[in-house]
């Protein structure tokens, strides 16, 4: 029993200072993280950030140049992909077209020399669990996109891996199906309780699905945290810009009052934001305000209840109607800076007209200000 409890406490995946270079380029730069048993971990980053390389190192297709990857507490150095307790769902799924659905699912079991009868039974049971009971004799190309997805997951999970890796499996699906599969993936993960490591460039997938997310950029993690932390407390300007929609303003810090900074943007607009990290007066900064952090009013009087907030004036530039996600693009009156504001879901401002003069304000506590990162070469 004691062994069991320590096993439960031990993370399923640990990476210690994992490095991978391709020529002179460092694809993965001393990345360390750990993934708790049974959790859903996402690696989020733009293309070329090194996330695929990292995933392929975990799967064993690439050997790291430095550092160690431990799966289930065991170092994976020198362990071939077919000997790792890890399975992968490939970007384009990589179902075997020369086999039917049941043969695809039973493929890994056959490699482990599981007797045929047990193989068939397990494959059928697994297909039933993913909602594909009776589809075993179908050809792979007879399935819909969502069904193929489920076969790919079933094919991996039937081997009861410690870790399931998913390489942007939703990328090839159309929007409607992608939304549906997101929910299905999350349900599958909680039903099976397997640890999922998911890589994506789609921040919405990462936020919806994950327990923890690592935001990756230029080969290292910018921030590791829960989706809420990433969204409400971004640690770096990159995370603030990459995760969720944000209004980004560059400028200089004109004054620092404790936790708050007065920023004069490049366009000459003066705003106030919460300081993250140390910022000196006169330093170059980047400030971020989420569209939903701003409140809109027809007149400044309407915004009176929000005492203490600076009220700005602006002209409606365009209306972006998208149901509950509707927003309005406003040009700040003096600086002509384009600022995005989410419209309240009550539909109260649905009748705004382009060119209309409005008032808006935002809570400086919900605006983030970072020292501008040094320019990249």
């Amino acid at each position, binding site marked *: 029993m004691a062994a069991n409890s320590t096993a439960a406490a031990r993370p399923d995946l640990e990476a210690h200072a994992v490095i991978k270079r391709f020529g002179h380029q460092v694809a993965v730069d001393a990345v360390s993280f750990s993934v708790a048993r049974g959790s859903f971990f996402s690696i989020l980053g733009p293309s070329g950030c090194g996330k695929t390389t990292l995933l392929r190192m975990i799967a*064993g*297709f690439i050997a790291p140049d430095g550092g160690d990857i431990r799966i289930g507490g065991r170092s994976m150095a020198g362990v071939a*992909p*077919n000997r790792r307790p890890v399975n992968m769902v*490939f970007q384009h799924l990589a179902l075997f077209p020369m086999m039917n659905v049941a043969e695809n699912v039973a493929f890994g079991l056959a490699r482990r020399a599981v007797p045929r009868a047990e193989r068939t039974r397990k494959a059928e049971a697994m297909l039933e669990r993913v909602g594909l009971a009776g589809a075993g004799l179908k050809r792979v190309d007879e399935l819909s996109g969502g069904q193929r997805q489920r076969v790919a997951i079933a094919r991996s999970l039937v081997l009861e891996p410690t870790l399931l890796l998913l390489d942007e499996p939703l990328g090839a699906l159309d929007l409607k199906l992608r939304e549906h599969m997101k929910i299905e993936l999350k349900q599958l993960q909680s039903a099976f309780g397997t640890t999922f490591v998911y890589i994506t460039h789609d921040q919405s997938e990462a936020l919806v699905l994950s327990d923890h997310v690592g935001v990756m950029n230029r080969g290292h993690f910018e921030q590791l945290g829960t989706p809420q932390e990433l969204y409400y407390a971004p640690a770096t300007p990159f995370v603030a810009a990459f995760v969720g929609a944000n209004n980004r303003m560059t400028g200089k810090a004109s004054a620092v009052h404790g936790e708050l900074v007065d920023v004069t943007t490049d366009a000459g607009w003066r705003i106030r934001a919460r300081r993250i990290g140390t910022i000196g007066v006169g330093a170059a900064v980047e400030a971020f305000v989420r569209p939903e952090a701003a409140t809109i009013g027809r007149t400044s009087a309407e915004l009176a209840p929000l005492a203490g907030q600076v009220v700005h004036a602006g002209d409606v530039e365009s209306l972006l109607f998208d149901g509950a996600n509707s927003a309005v693009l406003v040009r700040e009156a003096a600086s002509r800076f384009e600022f995005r504001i989410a419209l309240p879901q009550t539909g109260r401002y649905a009748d705004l007209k382009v060119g209309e003069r409005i008032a808006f304000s935002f809570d400086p506590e919900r605006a983030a200000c970072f020292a501008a990162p040094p320019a990249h070469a």
Partner: protein
Amino acid sequence: MLEATATAAWHRRLMLGLLLAPALLWLFALIVLPHLDLALLSFREPVAPRKYVPSLAQYRTFFAEPLYWHVFMRTAILSALATALTLLIAFPVAWTIAKLARGRMGALLFVVCLIPFWVSETVRTLGWMILLRESGVLPALLVRLGLTNGPVELLYHDATILVGLVYTSLLFMVVPLVGSLESLDNSLIEAAYDLGSGGFAILRKIVIPHAAPGITAGCIVVFMLTLGNYLTPTLLGGKNSLWFTEQIYTQFITRFNWEQGAAFGFLLLALSTAMVWFGLKLSGQRFSDVMRRT
């Protein structure tokens, strides 16, 4: 309106007919006609000068004379063996070109396979003779290395014929194999690896099933080329070669027995057709799929 569409349809048919005409003409004049004539030849027997009667005598001779059908079987078996050897040698070559070589390296390797075909088959075969004959390069080398006491005759063995046939056929196997291996998605190989397969299981379960049409296409082409090859077995095998095409040649040219030669020709055609059919059955391939790969 209706007339216009009818005229347009007629025009389309005329165009199609004109475009196909050269191919159809070629097929008819150079393949169908001669074969019809040969078929007629093979089913007759001379009874007096310029007098012929329809008969099965030519085919009866083939079965009655052990030399003929021994040579026939020998040609079939050696051809099948040469095809198998070519496949074994060509597969790693094709794999290297299709999967391992990057960028221009693949094209370069392909050219290396092609280069021997820039010289004629006769010259290539004579090259082998220079290398292998008793006073040639290889026996001299063996003596110098102390492996043999005196120079050995390396020509005029069945193995020599096989070497020559495999060498001549290699490219015709490599081309369809490269085509079918290139179309194999690498992620399928990785997926199989990830699901616990070793190299052999990946080859057996993923690569070969995917490449099967290409493999079959290459085997059919090589088998037919080998079966119908005259030059290589004759030059490298000498008098011992006993290749069936030689028998046909002898009947037509030396003995001037066109009737017998025509019958032999048809037997060879029947053999290659039967072997192709058997090969397709054995590998579970459809002829149309395979032909798209050649």
